[in-house]
């Protein structure tokens, strides 16, 4: 069924926040507040926003090293995420994880993982856990086009289907694994069709259209939640920036990038909401201002936050207390 006006506005707000957040991250990275590998989601906002908004708050989400958006969609406070990126003790992982390793137990976000494909079987395990505990909570398991060539992708899909688990595999197909075009990495590059080899229904959606993603995901989540087993959704999208802050992305043509920018999910939704009379320009502007303010505040909070205390170095490795 169609997406309610209020939900559309919320998705718009979320996408604007993600974009602004990532822009803030880029600035802070340039200013040396953020280090390491930092992967931006700009251009792909519609995928995480549309997909995760189709879940219940206690369904699980698990992703890759490109997970700023996913944590924001799970409602982790932007300041806790920005502080994590700044490596501060107020960060969502106390500054120990960094950009690639967000995690928010209280919001059922099972984390970001830096090893391509590494999160896939872990997400399947969470689904097995729900199944064994007779709960109908599903797991949304994100991965990239390049990840579909990893062996563990094959193993995870096979097990999810074998045990008929509630996993929604969402492929963020931005057509590149760093500089490698999906056509040169995958013998079979229509990724949704790879699901067939496991007897898993495969779907494809325009990942630049948040409403389409949301509608498709509501359908798939319902299917999985009701015992239909795993499904795979290929969301076709594009990352505007390089693979990470240290990648200029020269391997992609300007023409290609231009083409995709024309399909930008944010103006697209703005336009349709305006036409439908759901919002007016002032409202959109207010949403942008709100996002700017939130991110601004998050950056100030992060910068003002203390670095982890030296003692933290040896904390959190093992659970304390007697073992027997």
């Amino acid at each position, binding site marked *: 069924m169609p997406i309610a006006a209020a939900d559309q506005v919320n998705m718009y707000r979320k996408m604007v926040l993600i974009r602004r957040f990532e822009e803030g991250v880029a600035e802070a990275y340039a200013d040396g507040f953020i280090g390491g590998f930092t992967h931006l989601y700009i251009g792909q906002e519609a995928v995480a926003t549309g997909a995760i908004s189709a879940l219940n708050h206690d369904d*699980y989400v*698990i992703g890759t090293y490109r997970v700023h958006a996913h944590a924001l969609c799970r409602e982790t406070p932007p300041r806790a995420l920005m502080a994590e990126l700044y490596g501060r003790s107020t*960060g*969502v*992982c*106390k*500054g*120990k*994880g960094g950009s690639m*390793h967000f*995690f*928010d*137990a209280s919001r059922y976000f*099972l*984390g970001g*993982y830096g*090893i391509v494909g*590494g999160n*896939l*079987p*872990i*997400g*399947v*395990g*969470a*689904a*097995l*856990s*729900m199944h*064994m*505990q007779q709960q109908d909570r599903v*797991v949304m398991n994100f991965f990239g086009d390049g990840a579909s060539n990893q*062996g*563990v992708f094959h*193993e*995870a899909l*096979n*097990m999810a289907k*074998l*045990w008929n688990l509630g996993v929604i595999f969402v492929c963020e197909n931005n057509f590149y694994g760093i500089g490698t075009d999906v056509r040169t990495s995958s013998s079979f590059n229509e990724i949704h069709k790879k699901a067939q080899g496991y007897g898993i229904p495969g779907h494809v959606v325009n990942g630049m259209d948040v409403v389409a993603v949301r509608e498709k995901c509501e359908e798939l989540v319902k299917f999985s939640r009701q015992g239909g087993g795993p499904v795979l959704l290929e969301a076709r999208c594009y990352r505007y920036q390089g693979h990470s802050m240290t990648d200029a992305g020269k391997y992609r043509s300007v023409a290609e990038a231009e083409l995709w920018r024309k399909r930008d999910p944010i103006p697209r939704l703005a336009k349709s909401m305006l036409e439908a009379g759901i919002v007016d320009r002032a409202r959109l502007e207010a949403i942008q201002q709100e996002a700017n303010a939130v991110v601004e505040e998050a950056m100030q909070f992060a910068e003002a936050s203390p670095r982890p205390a030296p003692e933290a170095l040896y*904390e*959190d*490795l*093992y*659970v304390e207390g*007697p*073992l*027997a």
Partner: protein
Amino acid sequence: MPEIRYYEAVQRALAEEMARDERVFILGEDVGLVGGTFRATEGLMAEFGARRVRDTPIAEAAIIGVAIGAAMTGLRPVAELMTLNFGIVAMDQIINHASKARYMFGGQVNLPMVIRAPAGGGTQKGAQHSHSIESWFVNAPGIRVVLPSTPYDLKGLLKTAIRCEDPVLFIEHEMLYNMKGEVPDEEYLLPFGVADIKRPGRDVTIVTWSRMVHEALRAAEILANEGIEAEVVDVRTLDPLDRDTILSSVLRTRRAVIAEEGWRKVGVGAEISSQIQEALFYELEAPVQRVAAADVPTPYASNLEKLALPDAQRIVDAVLKI
């Protein structure tokens, strides 16, 4: 006390913990219908059902990954690697995921999971199936490493492992499965990080674990005939390591030999030797000796394999050197 076999001790520990805690379940290759290649899970599927004793495809990376996800979300998986050799296929999930999750996520999540893995050589299984690679897992922080040498230790330590909130690699030696030993019917747990002095002695300390404990005890017998009283310290867990018991024993004997089945080069023996010498350099009467496997892939031919792996005689020779 009644005697049971090493593999029966595994069965009992698993059965008791599964009966005690609904959240405990088993997954692995041939753990259900077949009951485990070494009979370690025999009868459990019949007792607890296919829901809690899950046969899996041959996909170790996914087996471990699935255990991680289940452990993060309220269950207590006991994943069996048919043997540790196949855990190498899952190395990334074990070391880069299970061992790191709690720390890199700032302590937000516990991983109460056990990875059971038969391991070791000695029966002509050849180069790819005879690994004793505990050293890799001790090197990487974040996972407990346990190597019981007797049915008694196994049962008490496995129950502790299942109740542990951290990931545990529980390495069982393939040659010990049929070994018999006394195990009380009453429940008991054994703590991690507490070594067991399997034989007291005043002249030299032999630090060891897993199957080599028995070679060390044989060596101690031989040495006793020559009037040398060797103390055999079975560390039982390598992470955590009972440094105090090792050091206080060596402080008494002033001589130490470390015996392990794994390769010598960068084996755990190197670590223990270094720790002893760093702490007791001025008390030692002689350099710490290491007895370990030859630095070659394990050969198939029985005579070569015997040459490759350490044994009681080699331990005796090392002791006599110092």
